[in-house]
């Protein structure tokens, strides 16, 4: 099974970049949230970019991860972006209504 490393969580300017693993499910949710939240405490972080380049699977646990992180930055006017989201991920955004919160970039 693929590993997630701390390099998958990087701060670039005022953005926290999170490179998501191949499979985003309940099993991996705890690890992703812990690492993201550790960095979200830093003052400079305003926005979050979720990178789905490696992601081939996501279920409702992914919705929880994104919603939960969004709640932590929305009060400071932060935004959430998704990059490299494939068709299935976009479909999940649509069904869950998450596309109203996440801006999907090409």
């Amino acid at each position: 099974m693929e590993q997630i490393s701390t390099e998958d969580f990087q701060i670039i300017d005022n953005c926290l970049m999170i490179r998501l693993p191949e499979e985003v499910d309940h099993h991996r949710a705890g690890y992703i949230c812990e690492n993201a939240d550790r960095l979200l405490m830093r003052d400079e972080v305003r926005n979050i970019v979720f990178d789905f380049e490696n992601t081939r699977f996501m279920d409702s646990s992914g919705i929880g991860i994104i919603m939960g992180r969004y709640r932590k930055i929305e009060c400071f006017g932060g935004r959430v972006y998704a990059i490299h989201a494939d068709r299935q991920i976009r479909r999940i955004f649509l069904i869950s209504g998450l596309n109203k919160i996440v801006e999907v970039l090409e």
Partner: protein
Amino acid sequence: MMQKGKEEKKSFTCHGGMQMTAGQGYQNEMEITFDAISDNEAFARVAVAAFVTHLNPTLEELSDIKTAVSEAVTNAIIHGYENIHGYSRSDGGRPADEIIHEGKVTIHCVLDKDLLHIDVSDQGIGMEDIDQAMEPLFTTRPELERSGMGFAFMEAFMDELEVESAPNQGTTIHMTKKIGVGDWIDSEE
């Protein structure tokens, strides 16, 4: 009930040479039972996906099945048995005082021609109000960042969804999907 045709088969293995063309009364059945820990979520959905591969499902159909199975199995683990954290039994990072509740999840699949029936069952705490539980955005676990979208995904990605549950009697999720219908997303776009 499933009809028992001549070409019925009941095992994991597919014998070579047999044509799996729909409409020939082909049947296949499998059942797996595993510990209710988050390690097994990936295994469970991949096992079901592998079970239908010889029907040449589209990538979308495979994704749909995997997501639906993942939702049902995760619910059994988190809600049914309250094994709420997403780590394995051996994970060093998990809090020392955390309890793993004993429990098993069973997936029973029947492939009847091109129709896939999936039952996911647990013997956990069950549900009092099934209709309420199935409403989009309803969750009893907001503190765990659950979004209440699990049933909505099962409904969206499968053709049929039926929930059987009662308090302390466990839960069984019945789902059905026709395989090989084609790439409806493409035709939509």
